[in-house]
C-alpha cells in the first residue's frame, strides 16, 4: 500500500527531529513503551539513520504489570532490529509492594512510571528522552513543544516554554537539565494506523479483537492477564470479543468490545468511533486537568 503525501511529510519531519537529537545531545535515549506509537517510532528511527544503526539505546520502564504479550513482543522486536534495550523497574516501589490494586492507579503510576523514569534518566545521565506522545492525544499535550525542556527535577513549566520556530530546535541544556523530544507531535491516531498499514509495521495483537477473559468494573472491561488480579466474591472472568486502543499496565487499561480482528477493520473502526483513545486510560480521568498535573511532575 502506498503512502499519502501527507504521511510522507510527517515521516520526513519525524526523521528530521531524530537526527537533530542525535547530533545535538550527548546522551539521548528512545523511550520504548511497546504500543503502536512506539512501533512507529522504532520504524522511523531505523529509517532516520539507515544504513547505520540508531546511535542511542531504547529504554523501557517496566512496571511489572504490562500485558505478558507486550513483553514478549518487546524482546522479539529488539532481537530482530539488533539494538540495545535498557529495562528499568523501580525496585524501591516493588519492595514497598506498590501495585495497581492495593495502591490505587495514581500512586502506582507515580511510583512505578514517573519515579521509575526519573530514576532511569538520572542513573544513565540521559540528557534527552525521545517519546511517542502526540499532540492530538490530550489538551495539555497540544501545547507541548517538540523539544520540551525539563529542569533538573524533570519538571515541565507550561507557562515558560521555549518558543519553537520553523524546524530550528533549541537543544541546549545545562548539566542536570534535559529535554523530552516528541517526533510524533504532529501525527494523529488516524495517521499512526494508516502509516502502520502502509509500511507493514508489526504491532502487538492486543490491538486486534479476539476472545479474551475480562471482568467488568465501573463500566470498564479489564482483561485478566494473569492471576495477580484479585477477583471479588462471585466475580467470574468472561470470554468476550475485545481489543485495546492503547496499551499500558493491564489492570489500568480498559478493553473495548470490538469485532475488528484485522488491521483494516481496526482502521475502519477508528474512523467511526465515538470515544477518544485515552478514554481507556484510568489515570487521565481523575479530573480534567490531571494530565497537565502529571506532566509538570515529570510524567511522560
Amino acid at each position, binding site marked *: 500500500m502506498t503512502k499519502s*503525501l*501527507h504521511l510522507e511529510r510527517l515521516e520526513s519531519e519525524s526523521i528530521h527531529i531524530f537526527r537533530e537529537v542525535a547530533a545535538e545531545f550527548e546522551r539521548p535515549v528512545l523511550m520504548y513503551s511497546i504500543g503502536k506509537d512506539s512501533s512507529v517510532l522504532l520504524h522511523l528511527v531505523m529509517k532516520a539513520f539507515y544504513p547505520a544503526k540508531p546511535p542511542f539505546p531504547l529504554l523501557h520502564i517496566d512496571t511489572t504489570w504490562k500485558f505478558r504479550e507486550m513483553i514478549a513482543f518487546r524482546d522479539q522486536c529488539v532481537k530482530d532490529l539488533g539494538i540495545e534495550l535498557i529495562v528499568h523497574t523501580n525496585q524501591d516501589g516493588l519492595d514497598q509492594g506498590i501495585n495497581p490494586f492495593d495502591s490505587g492507579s495514581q500512586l502506582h503510576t507515580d511510583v512505578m512510571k514517573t519515579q521509575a523514569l526519573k530514576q532511569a534518566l538520572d542513573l544513565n545521565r540521559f540528557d534527552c528522552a525521545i517519546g511517542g506522545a502526540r499532540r492530538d492525544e490530550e489538551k495539555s499535550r497540544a501545547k507541548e513543544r517538540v523539544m520540551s525542556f525539563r529542569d533538573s527535577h524533570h519538571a515541565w513549566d507550561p507557562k515558560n516554554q521555549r*518558543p519553537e520556530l*520553523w*524546524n530550528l530546535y533549541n537543544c*541546549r541544556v545545562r548539566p542536570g537539565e534535559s529535554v523530552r523530544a516528541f517526533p510524533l*507531535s504532529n501525527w494523529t491516531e488516524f495517521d499512526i494506523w494508516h502509516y502502520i498499514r502502509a509500511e507493514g509495521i508489526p504491532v502487538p495483537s492486543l490491538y486486534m479483537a479476539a476472545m479474551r477473559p475480562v471482568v467488568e468494573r465501573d463500566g470498564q472491561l479489564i482483561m485478566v492477564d494473569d492471576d495477580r488480579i484479585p477477583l471479588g466474591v462471585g466475580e467470574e472472568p468472561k470470554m468476550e470479543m475485545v481489543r485495546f486502543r492503547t496499551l499500558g499496565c493491564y489492570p489500568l487499561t480498559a478493553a473495548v468490545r470490538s469485532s475488528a480482528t484485522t488491521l483494516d477493520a481496526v482502521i475502519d473502526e477508528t474512523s467511526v468511533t465515538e470515544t*477518544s483513545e485515552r478514554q481507556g486510560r484510568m489515570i487521565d480521568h481523575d479530573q480534567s*486537568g490531571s494530565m497537565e498535573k502529571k506532566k509538570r511532575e515529570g510524567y511522560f
Partner: protein
Amino acid sequence: MSTPEQALLRFLTCGSVDDGKSTLIGRLLYDSKLLFADQLETLNKDSQKFGTVPDGMDFALLVDGLEAEREQGITIDVAYRYFATPQRSFIVADTPGHEQYTRNMATGASTADLAVILVDARHGVVTQTRRHTFIAHLLGIQSIIVAVNKMDLVDYDQSVFDDIVADYYETIADLGFNHIAAIPISALYGENVTTQFDQMSWYDGLSVIESLETAPVSSSSSKTGFRLPVQIVSRPDQDFRGYAGTLCGAPMTVGDSAIVSPAGTQTSIKSITTPEGEVETADAGTAVTVTLADNIDASRGDIICHGDQGMLVTDQVQAHLIWMSDEPMIPGRQYLLKLATRSATAWVSELKHTVNVNTMEHVASKTLELNDIGVCNLSFDRRMACDAYGDCHDTGAFILIDRFTYATVGAGMIDFSLRRARNLTLQTLTMDKVARARSMGQKPAVIWFTGLSGSGKSTVANAVESKLFDKGHRTYLLDGDNVRHGLNRDLGFTDADRVENIRRFGEVAKLFADAGLIVLVSVISPFRGERDMVRDLLDDDEFIEVFVDASLETCEKRDPKGLYARARKGEIQNFTGIDSPYEAPLNAELVLDTDALSPDDAAEQVIALIEKRILED
C-alpha cells in the same frame, strides 16, 4: 471522516484577545465531527463549571488546554489541533491575542501557510489585528482570511462588515499578500464557519471551511535551487559516507552539480536515499541521505547547494529580528545562533530601527525589548552560508539563544548580506604577538578582576602589578575609573552603555596583549555575557578571570568613595549591587575572598597563577 490521502494545510488563528479564536477552532472541530463522545462529555462538564455561554457549549474550553487558561478564560500559549474534511487535512495553531504572548504567535506563524485573522465586529481593526497581520507578513505567510466575528452581536449588519473590511484593506495595502478573503461569521453559532445561514444572505462568498479547503499551500514559494543543510554524517563503515538532512528549496536529482558551503568545494550528487529507498529525484521537504561524487569533507552545519544556484557566504547580514525575552537585546552582546543546522556566535553590530507595528513607522532605538521587531546588522563569528528569507525560509531563518540560560531569546529572518563583510579584511602584520612576547620573556595575558565596587579589585590589581614589575615583567593596568574618564567618558551606566564600556575594555586589553604585555584589568563588569565576550576575543588560555569576592555588607562598610551611601540615598541610579545586578562568575580561574584575605595574600595567589602559566609554556 476523511482518509489522509490529501494535501495538508497548516494555518494559524490570531487576533485580539476575546475575538473568539478558540471558539472558532472548537466550532471547526465540532462541525467536522472530530469530537469524541468522552471529549464532548468533558466539554459539557467544563462548560457548566467555567463556561461563558449560557446553557450552551463553550468551544473555547476545548482548545484552551492548560488549567490556568481555563480559569482565566484566555489562551496563553500556542496549541496545535488536527482535523480533516473530505477535501483536506489541517494542522491549526491557536495563538494568543495578548500582546505579551506575541512571541507565541510568531512561533505559530513560522510554519503556517495561511493565517485566519479574527476581528471582533463590535471593535473593528485594533492594534493586535495590525500587529498580527504584520507578523504573519514578516514570517512569509502569503494567504490571509479575515474573519469578522460576532456578527450576531451587531445584528448581522452588512455596513459594519464592509467598513471593517475597507479599514483592514487599507492596513495591509503595502504588505502584498497573494490571497486575501474576508468573511462575516459568528463562531459561536457556526454561521459562515461550516454552514451558511439566512441572517447574512447579503454575503455570497465562501465559508471559512470552504476557503481553507481551496487555499494554496505556500511551501512551493522558494526561489532558490536545492539546499541540503547537513544534520549528521552517516559512516556505518569505511565504504559509505552519507550526508543526512532535510532537503529544502527545490528538488534534487542524481547527477546535479553541487557546492558544499561555506567552503565552496565543488562536486556532484552521486546517490539519494529517502525513506522510500534509493531514488533518482527527491522533493523539497524530504528527509534524505546523499552521497557525493568526490571524496570531500563536509560536516554538520555545512549546506550542500545546487552548483548553479549558490548561497550567500558572509559574516554580516541585515535581518529582521523579533525579540522574545524579558531581558532586552543589547547591541554588541553575544548570543548563540542556530541557522539551519549550523550553530555559531552572533551579535547585533547595529540596531537600525524598530518597527512600530501600528503605523509601520521606523523608530530609532538602542535596545530591543520583549515583542519588539527590529531591523539590524547582524555579525557572525565566522562565514556562514545562508539565503535571504524571502528566497528560502529554511536557510534564511535563525534563532538566537542566551549563552547562559540557553533560553530562545530571538527569532530572525535574513534580508540580505552586507557587502562590507567581503571588503573588510584584517591587516596582516609581520611581527606577531608570540615574537613580541618572547622578546620580553613572558606570555601575554589579560588578568580580569571583576567584583562589586569596594571589593578590593584595584587594591589587589595594583599590588599584583608592582610585584610583577619587581620580577621584571612588562605590564599595564587598565582601571575602571581611569578608562571611564578618558576613552569611555561618553558612556553612562545603563545596561547598553555598560556593555559598550566592557567591549572597549576588552578591545584595548586585546591590543596590549597583542603587544606582548601582561594586562591587568580592574572593572566591575557585572554581566557574565560581556566578560565571556572578552574571553572569546582573546586566544585560548589568555583570559584569566579573577573574581574579587567580598560580601555586599563588607563592600558597603568599606565604601572607599562614599558611593554606596549615595546610592542608598537614591543619588546614584543603576548602582551595581543596589539597584543593578551583579552576575558572579561561574568558572573563574581564581576566586579571592577578600572578606578573609589580606590584599598582599590575594596578590600572591594571582602571582602564583601567572607564574604557573609561564612555567607551563
